[in-house]
């Protein structure tokens, strides 16, 4: 009964939000640019969710999710360029990434804590280096170009992308939410709380970690798969360590072990990053004109400022509020309806 209520609630909520957003798009309140940021936010949330599953709920810090994103994106990009049907190419990208996650997880998950963090970092770098060196196949350092979009007409690519990305994100949220509420999910949380005690209770630590890691890779790969036709052009430089760290920042800010926290901070940080990026030039010019450019050019470059800000957010959060915005709590929408019984 509870499960049914959950499903109805989740479906209703997602459908409602989707209908509102879609309505705003079709009457033209949300312009194409905002829509593009919304799609980016959706993809960021998917990757951050997958990272939260392995790092927040299972307690194994991974620093290579940009690598998974890259594998998903490149696989789908290559499949699409080879004229594989669209839904197959998307699923293909996600499944290839999941397989890779499974294969990497096998040796890597025998390690603990910070060693695992470093190995995943290393794997992310290896993936990037391999993409650069695979020549024609991946387009090398200059990138993979002219990937077919969601729509034939480039003008409506963003709304078409939204039609795919939003439901996919919703499915990812539902998948992770149901997983962590299942008995396997409780096993994952027990690993985070105390690995040794959990093992003593009979939890198959390695198998559970591997499952969590593979699901995580699948979701991150799905985000990558949806990213390729959305953006149309893939360059290996976009999948570096700093990208992985951006997802860590989303998860940490929202709260390691909170899905709603990840969604909130995913939307917030995507918009913040975009605002900083588009306004940085203007601010730099404002400062320059304030002090006068003739005096020897005291210009302050605000472009790297967003990175500085993100770094500071990490440090300050860890010192003063290590649990992030929501900690392991969730915003529960069932509460809204409980009063009206």
């Amino acid at each position: 009964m509870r499960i049914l209520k959950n499903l109805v609630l989740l479906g209703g909520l997602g459908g409602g939000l989707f209908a509102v957003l879609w309505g705003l798009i079709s009457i033209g309140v949300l312009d194409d640019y905002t829509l593009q940021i919304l799609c980016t936010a959706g993809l960021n949330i998917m990757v951050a969710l997958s990272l939260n599953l392995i790092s927040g709920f299972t307690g194994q810090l991974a620093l290579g999710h940009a690598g998974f994103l890259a594998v998903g994106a490149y696989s789908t990009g290559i499949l699409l360029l080879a004229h594989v049907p669209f839904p197959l190419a998307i699923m293909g990208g996600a499944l290839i990434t999941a397989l890779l996650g499974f294969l990497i997880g096998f040796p890597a998950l025998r390690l603990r804590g910070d060693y695992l963090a470093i190995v995943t970092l290393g794997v992310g770098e290896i993936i990037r280096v391999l993409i650069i060196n695979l020549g024609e196949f991946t387009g090398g350092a200059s990138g993979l170009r002219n990937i077919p979009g969601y729509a034939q007409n480039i003008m409506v690519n963003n709304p078409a992308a939204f039609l795919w990305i939003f439901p996919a994100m919703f499915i990812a949220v539902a998948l992770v939410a149901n997983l962590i509420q299942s008995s396997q999910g409780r096993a994952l949380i027990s690993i985070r709380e105390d690995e040794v005690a959990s093992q003593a209770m009979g939890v198959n630590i390695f198998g559970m970690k591997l499952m969590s890691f593979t699901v995580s890779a699948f979701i991150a790969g799905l985000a990558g798969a949806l990213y390729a036709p959305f953006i149309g052009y893939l360059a290996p430089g976009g999948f570096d360590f700093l990208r992985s760290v951006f997802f860590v920042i989303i998860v940490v800010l929202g709260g390691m072990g909170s899905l709603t926290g990840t969604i909130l901070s995913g939307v917030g940080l995507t918009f913040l990053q975009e605002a900083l990026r588009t306004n940085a030039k203007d601010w730099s010019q404002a400062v320059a004109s304030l002090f006068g450019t003739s005096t020897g050019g005291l210009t302050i470059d605000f472009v790297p400022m967003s990175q500085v800000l993100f770094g500071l957010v990490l440090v300050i959060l860890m010192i003063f509020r290590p649990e992030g915005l929501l900690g392991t709590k969730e915003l529960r929408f069932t509460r809204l309806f409980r009063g009206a019984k």
Partner: protein
Amino acid sequence: MELFTQIIQQLINGLSLGGIYALIALGYTMVYGIVKLINFAHGDILMVGAYLSYFVLTTFGFTPWSLAAAFALAVFGSVALGVGIEASCYRPLRNAPRINALITAIGVSIVLENLPRVFPFIGSDYRNLAVPSFFENITFGDITIIPIKLITLVVTLVLMGLLILVVDYSKSGKAMRAVSYDMGASALMGISVNRTVSFTFALGSALAGAGGLLYILNFPQLDTYMGIMPGLKAFVAAVLGGIGSIPGAMVGGLILGLAETFTTGFISSDLTGAVVFGILILILMFKPSGILGVHRKEKV
């Protein structure tokens, strides 16, 4: 003969590069040994040392005195920065879960990499340092030795020798070893843990700062992200040698330098990153305690 000369050539280059990696790796391994923290910002301290010496060298030119001044500024600047970071960012988290400290270190690293880009006198452009050739190239038959590589190797060996003297024979070194063995018991024995941890960060940062100067003398191009790759590679060196082990960091650094120059020389310079991280994954799979590390059983 051709192959033989090439091997000797790469051997010298590799040992010289490996020396620099070993210097950085020592900082990682000492810090990890004592507070169990992978100090992600360590590579960026190399960057700061490099910039400090760059400013001295471009202002005063290349004289023995300016080189000495660059060395001193790089070392002392790095020490101040390293100790400051530890006191302000890592100390509050000493008893927090290790993952939290690791995330903090990543945050510190991002700030160090990007904050200098905001200011116009550093900025985000590449800078090149015109290093004069101090001496004639030394040639033995077909083999050409670039003197700066030899100087680098000698300087790193001297610095490592000094470090061993400090750690093995000074009182602070003894305190370091005690704290890394058991922090709680050392505190009970009257050792100031905070001071010892600061001292460890000071030693590690000094080596990284010196490494920064040596790095730009060998690879004379600077930008604020330059510390990331040497930092990561040095970390791999530390793991390879056995993290927490000082001789291990030296051996690991030299092996990694050789692996990198041989990959560059015989396969492709694009693949060095993959080879280095491949080594890391292999060593973690088959011997996670490293070549010279000690495997400690976890007690519950």
